[in-house]
């Protein structure tokens, strides 16, 4: 997209007024999507994302700009415009750019880009049939497959010798939604969206897609008979996998340097302090081969890492990007991410999970007299400054005398990150990951959340079903 010689010119234009770091992030992303409505192709789409962002740092200050015109004139004009916001003398001139070796940890042998559209359509039709076969009350079924390949070039300079990184990312995602109609105007929905940084073999051979499709239908039908969720303070057992959205919202965002560096996080001064129950350890790991949130390098060119965030309840690390690392006086640790060239990068989660504990998941339920079992979530959000978070269950049940009983709907869990992590009193041994999209300062990015089955001794549950009895 950008030649080395042009990159050198642009970096030097960017550094003309005293910037101490300059970076060009060029991107070309080819995306394709297919959507079926009730088994028929509703839309097939193709999109080309193309452009570059330029960032200049000077101490703690940052300027960023982007353009979708990658001509020399346009890039130089952008770099000059951005540099004009600093007033100073050039600190150094970039005299050479050295290409860096990028180790490929996510290998794909059968790219989704090469799979004929017909084949993806018949795959989605199989999913549709599997869901449809569940029950006649499923009035609408949506099946979609989307995938993309992004080619990225990063040029950066902090001294006379600049660096060049090249990376390619590929991901695919199957999304299935079922709508069940009940009495009157009652409509319940269910969703599953398995995704991976992987090829066609995974989606067709490894993933049990027909079973997942069936589960979507069954869940929507089951929700028709669900009663309103009670409200109040209860013991809540959260299933493994997607349940990890609890940690993602309650704690993960508040450990991103984006929030901690400016003192805007409830965990800003927490390193070395106990922030969770001693049975909780947690990681953010961008290096798990072919996982949804993994990458070979981050958006600044750093190699991705496995970062421990909590060890036995003690906060041991933050997720740190370059700019916020300067405020914190900490090294960047491979977690700088962005949706596209239209966003300046910042510290973000990749595959974040609570590590396995010792308990048998079934025993955790058996040991709960009255409470709520949350089997699946829709998602959630957090205000990192106060640590107050919420997340919505998409599948939940009442636990009575150690048994999972009737399903409930409209269940929201809220709390403050500080409290809820301390209230985790059981951690299972069945850690699993679930895929989602995370929205924050640098856009919407693919992330895995994860955890084993765990129990929170007390948390506020909101619903319309009155008191739990």
């Amino acid at each position: 997209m950008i030649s080395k010689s042009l990159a050198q010119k642009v970096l030097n234009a960017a550094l003309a007024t005293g910037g101490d770091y300059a970076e060009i992030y060029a991107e070309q992303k080819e995306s394709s999507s297919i959507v079926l409505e009730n088994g028929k192709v509703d839309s097939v789409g193709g999109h080309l994302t193309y452009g570059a962002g330029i960032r200049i740092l000077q101490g703690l200050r940052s300027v960023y700009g982007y353009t979708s015109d990658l001509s020399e004139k346009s890039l130089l004009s952008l770099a000059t415009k951005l540099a004009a916001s600093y007033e100073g003398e050039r600190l150094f001139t970039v005299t050479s750019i050295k290409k860096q070796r990028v180790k490929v940890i996510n290998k794909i042998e059968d790219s989704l880009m090469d799979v004929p559209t017909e084949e993806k359509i018949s795959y989605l039709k199989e999913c549709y049939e599997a869901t449809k076969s569940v029950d006649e009350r499923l009035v609408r079924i949506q099946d979609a497959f989307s995938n993309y390949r992004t080619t990225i070039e990063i040029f950066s300079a902090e001294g006379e010798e600049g660096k060049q990184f090249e990376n390619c990312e590929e991901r695919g995602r199957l999304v299935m939604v079922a709508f069940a109609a009940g009495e009157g105007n009652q409509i319940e929905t269910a969703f599953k969206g398995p995704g991976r940084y992987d090829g066609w073999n995974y989606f067709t051979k490894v993933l049990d897609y027909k079973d997942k499709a069936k589960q979507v239908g069954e869940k929507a039908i089951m929700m028709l008979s669900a009663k309103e969720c009670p409200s109040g303070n209860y013991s809540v057992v959260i299933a493994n996998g997607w349940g990890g959205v609890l940690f993602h919202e309650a704690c993960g965002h508040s450990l991103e340097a984006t929030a901690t560096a400016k003192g805007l996080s409830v965990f800003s001064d927490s390193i070395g302090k106990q922030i969770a129950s001693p049975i909780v350890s947690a990681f953010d790991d961008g290096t798990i081969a072919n996982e949804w949130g993994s990458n070979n390098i981050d958006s600044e060119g750093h190699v991705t890492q496995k970062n421990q965030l909590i060890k036995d309840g003690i906060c041991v690390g933050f997720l740190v990007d370059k700019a916020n690392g300067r405020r914190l006086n900490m090294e960047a640790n491979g977690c700088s991410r962005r949706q596209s060239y239209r966003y300046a990068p910042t510290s973000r989660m990749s595959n974040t999970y609570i590590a396995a504990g010792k308990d048998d998941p079934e025993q955790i339920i058996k040991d709960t007299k009255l409470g709520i079992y949350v089997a699946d979530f829709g998602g959630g959000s957090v205000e990192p400054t106060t640590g107050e978070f919420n997340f919505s269950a998409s599948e939940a049940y009442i636990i009575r005398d150690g048994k999972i009983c009737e399903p409930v709907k409209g269940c929201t869990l809220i709390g403050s990150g500080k409290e809820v992590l301390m209230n985790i009193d059981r951690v299972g041994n069945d850690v699993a990951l679930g895929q989602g999209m995370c929205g924050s300062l640098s856009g919407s990015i693919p992330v895995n959340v994860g955890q084993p089955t765990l129990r929170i001794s007390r948390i506020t549950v909101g619903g319309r079903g009155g008191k739990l009895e």
Partner: protein
Amino acid sequence: MNFDKFFALAKEKGITEAQIQVSKSTATSVKLFKHEIDSYSVNDSQAIIACGIYNGKFGSGTTQKFGKDSFEFLVNQIIMTATYSEKMNDIGLFKGSEKYTKKNVFSKELEETPMAKKLEVLRSIEDGIYAFDGRFTEAEVSYSERSSSSEFYNSYDLKLKQKSNYFYVYAGAVARVGEETKTFGDVFLDNTFSKFNKDAFVKGICEKTLSKFGGAPCVSGKYPTVLSRDIAADLVACFLSSAVADEVQRHSSFLEGKLEQKIASSKVTIEEKPLTKNVFFSYFDDEGVATQNKVIVKNGVLKQFFYNRETAKKDGVETTGNASWEGSKIGTDFGNIFVKPGKQSFDEMISSIKEGVYITEIAGLGTGMNSNSGDFSCQAEGYMIRDGKLAEPLNLITLSGNLLKMFSDVKAFDNNVAMTSDAISIADVYIKKMSIGGK
């Protein structure tokens, strides 16, 4: 760009009707933190979206790359996507409306106000927050402005253009007392810079932040509930998304079969007025159809769904000019919504409430809302209402309900009306009872 080449290439490759839209925008934003410029950005972006009819089917493609091969890429995308479509297109592309109501909403005043002046205002907001009270420890203040143009062309010689600009100011304040941290942020969006009243903006943010100290959950139960206009606007947006004809026709809307029926309290009247001369003005939709003002709910009766040409044909009605691109297909959207306010003030409206709650903030509606059934449950905060007056602050509570039930239970709107940054003009609303989860 010379679009004749696109239309010629499309025709040559067998695309019988074609449409192309080009959007360009430039944006600048500045963020202050601790009296320094924390980040500054300047952006130029452009995109082309094209569609056409090939072998009787609809196809589309988009690109952000403007180069010599862009037209070929788009034409090939249209052919490829149409080929795989299983839906015959029996409406074709649009030949043009009889009349278009053009208005100039591009603000020269905003363009001509120097950046230095805007930065000066931004700095004084930050200073204002710290000066307001010693409990304010951090403030994030940012300014953004965007100017954009869109052009629409199709093979029926329909040519439409629109240019607009806007700015917004965001300020978020953090106040601390011991272990307790409170934060509140607000946005002001418009296209006339002189309309921005920084003193009132700062005062509003600071007072709201400080009034949250000591907040705690209330006892779970059903309470008479007043929703501030921002919260009411969020819920109206969810409600209206069920009035989109695509959802109704696919049996996934709780408003199916409810046209001309009473679906809300008679206090509820909702109009869509895209032709209002404001920052959200739009005179043509993504099919090139002239937009029109219309009543959606009148005194509680559902009068109208939102249509594009395809969904309108299915129901045997005229399009309402609400077509909007949704990924690679033309879907439906709405904007410039006006909910009829009431006559009494906020104080008068709550004066009859013995014990109730006033909700001022919610979070998690995105995932806590089932927009198909209208059931929702989300995180909330606000204040108790006791003996007709605002009392102690509430936080970490949940607000749960059902949209149909909630709009049927509207007792009143007050006269405290304003246009939110999501293009909904609305006042605070008093609901008979809603479920609150807390202690």
